[in-house]
């Protein structure tokens, strides 16, 4: 501390040169801030803001794109799934159809075979009936002629005739080849 000065000036009263230097200093700093620092940094800040905004926009776009791709994929997946379900359904119905076809075919075949057999049986029976009828007719006619040939008044004779017929019949049955002519010869 300098006590040598005769009187300390009032610190609240500015000296002229103090003011001048203050103004100079202030102006220098102000010019530096107004003309250099703030414009320069503002440009950078603005650009940074723009960049960040651009980045955010880009990210948003990418996100939207990804979402779109995902929905597209989902859609495709759904379509494929539906298609697969359709194919499966078709296959199932086709299978049912095939089974049903096979069944009807088998049924008709079975029916045909059964019918054939039936027809054959019928034919055989028909043939049997025809031949039987012919035989029975012949036999009946022979028996009747023989009965008519003998005298019908005598019971003994009648029974004798019948017995003889039966015997002959029996014999003709055992030897059908010789029975006919022999019986006919006897008439």
């Amino acid at each position: 501390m300098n006590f040598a000065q005769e009187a300390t000036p009032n610190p609240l009263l500015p000296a002229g040169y103090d003011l001048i230097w203050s103004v100079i200093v202030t102006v220098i700093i102000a010019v530096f801030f107004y003309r250099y620092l703030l414009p320069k940094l503002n440009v950078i800040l603005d650009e940074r803001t723009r960049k960040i905004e651009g980045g955010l926009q880009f990210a948003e776009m990418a996100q939207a794109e990804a979402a779109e791709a995902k929905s597209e994929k989902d859609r495709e997946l759904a379509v494929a799934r539906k298609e697969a379900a359709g194919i499966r359904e078709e296959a199932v119905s086709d299978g049912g159809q095939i089974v049903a076809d096979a069944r009807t075919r088998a049924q008709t075949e079975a029916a045909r075979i059964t019918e054939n057999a039936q027809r054959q049986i019928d034919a055989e029976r028909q043939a049997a009936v025809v031949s039987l009828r012919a035989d029975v007719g012949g036999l009946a006619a022979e028996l009747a002629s023989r009965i008519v040939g003998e005298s019908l008044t005598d019971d003994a004779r009648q029974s004798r005739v019948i017995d003889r017929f039966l015997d002959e019949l029996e014999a003709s049955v055992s030897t059908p080849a010789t029975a006919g002519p022999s019986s006919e010869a006897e008439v």
Partner: protein
Amino acid sequence: MGDFFPAGIFGDVSTGSWFGFDRIMMVRLIVVVLLLLLLWLGTRKATLIPGRGQNIVEMGLDFVRVQIAEQILGKERAKPYIAMLTTIFFAVLAMNLAGVIPFLNIAGTSRVGLPLVLALWVLVTYLAAGVKKHGVGKYLMTQLFPPGVPWPAYVLITPIEALQVFILRPATLTVRLLANMMAGHLMLALTFAATHFLLLEGGGLVKLAAPLTFAGGIFVTLFEVFVAVLQAYIFALLASIYLNFALEEEH
């Protein structure tokens, strides 16, 4: 007190002189050079992705813009005044910090000139802002005759408001800063001078008091750093508050 009025380096340094140069003026110029150099170095290669220096500078500018200007004035209204507030904040901060920088050791704001110039700048700016927004008559009306007051009260209020707007605001800005810086310097000088005196000239046990005063000096130095930042903040904050008063629709 002599520290605040050092002998002239050249020119006449008496109170009435308009041309003179003393140690404090020199300190101011050195501080200006240092401040501009640091800021220039920090932003010389300013890029989108800030480096370390640029980050620090941007943080400081951001602090003024967001915490002071936009906080008080709002985003839109603050825009025209950000440059002024930033200039004031950094000028005051740098000048204040000179008080604790070795070899400078005195704040550029511990002479009334600089705080006064800055306060007058604030005064002119907020008067201009008010006049520009409301016109001379309406601005003076809203400032001097605040609405919602019964008319006899204007007898008291109008002179108080006039004093407030035209004299007290810049005066308090000036004196608050000046007194803080002067007091800080006195405290620093006192503690270190006491340490020096006790250690070298104190006899016997008195020497033991020297570490105490030295620790006090360290503490006061750190405190001064805090006060330097705080006063810069307050100066810029009050400037924006006064601007806000001037720009307000109605009181």
